[in-house]
């Protein structure tokens, strides 16, 4: 079992107390009436599926019942950090220390598998974006 650090309870708790809630940092288009069908479709349906660093939303369901973020490595399952809602990760695919990188690991936005899919969080995915789509 994993021990997951809840940034609100400020201690490690059993995995059993938590639920994963999918990709984190998904931004709703500011003006849904004006955005393109493609952008709206991306927002609703398309999610990252990277081999490597992934930012996820989790909820401490049995404890404080707060949502928070986990940066997790999808190859090793290692939890790299957890942080509160509204905060930004300090560990991303771009700045992951070299020793932790595994060969073949893609950046966070490398998992885009659909032509036309765009990262919802530009801030997080911008840097690696170009490379991943070539």
């Amino acid at each position, binding site marked *: 079992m994993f021990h997951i650090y809840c940034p*609100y*309870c400020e201690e490690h708790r*059993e995995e059993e107390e938590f639920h994963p809630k999918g990709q984190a940092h998904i931004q709703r288009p500011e003006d849904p009436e004006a955005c393109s069908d493609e952008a709206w479709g991306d927002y609703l349906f398309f999610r990252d599926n990277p081999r490597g660093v992934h930012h996820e939303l989790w909820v401490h369901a*049995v*404890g404080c019942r707060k949502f928070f973020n986990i940066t997790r490595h999808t190859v090793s399952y290692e939890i790299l950090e957890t942080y509160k809602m509204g905060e930004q990760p300090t560990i991303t695919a771009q700045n992951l220390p070299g020793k932790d990188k595994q060969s073949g690991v893609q950046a966070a936005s490398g998992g885009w598998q659909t032509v036309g899919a765009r990262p919802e969080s530009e801030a997080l995915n911008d840097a690696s974006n170009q490379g991943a789509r070539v």
Partner: protein
Amino acid sequence: MSDVREFNTRPAGSPGAESPLAWSFQRQGTPPREAKPGVTLREKAFLGHLVLRGGAIVLDEAVRETLGLALPARPNALVQDASGERSIQWLAPDEWLVIVPGGEEFALESQLRQALGQAHFSIVNVSGGQTVLTLRGENAREVLMKSTPYDIHPQAFPVGKGVSTVFAKATVVLRRPAEDTWELVIRRSFADYCYRWLLDAAAEYGVIVER
């Protein structure tokens, strides 16, 4: 002044009231008295439970004024008054559980609403929805170790701590108000299950139920 309609859920007079464990006591009964019980179980029924939500600073002022207790600001903290009968426990960054002797909760709720005025807060009387079990005895910790994945070693769980965690596939608010006492705040709907789980888990140490 708050403009929320208040409702005293405790009826006037003294109609018969049954604790969440009434059914268990009737059907399951209590185990035969042990000469040297390793675990002693007791229900603290009919206490007043209030859930406070809101900003820590305004709530702190209000509970100091009404209860004379400081709101525990640290995660997983539990504070009590000198008698141990009134307590406030941190549940989440904006949520606290207040437990007071049965019958005090409605007056306390009114006083808190008065003190909080137009602040952004919520108070919910959950007295009917949960009950408190106390676990004592030299094997109480062993029983808990079978039931919850939470680390209850005295170093990790000192007196004055309380957590919401997994308990026997249900959930529990587990707290340690005194050196030799563990308190379990359990849901009414899980009371019978938890009671039977505890009797089963404690059977090997010898268990008595005080009533």
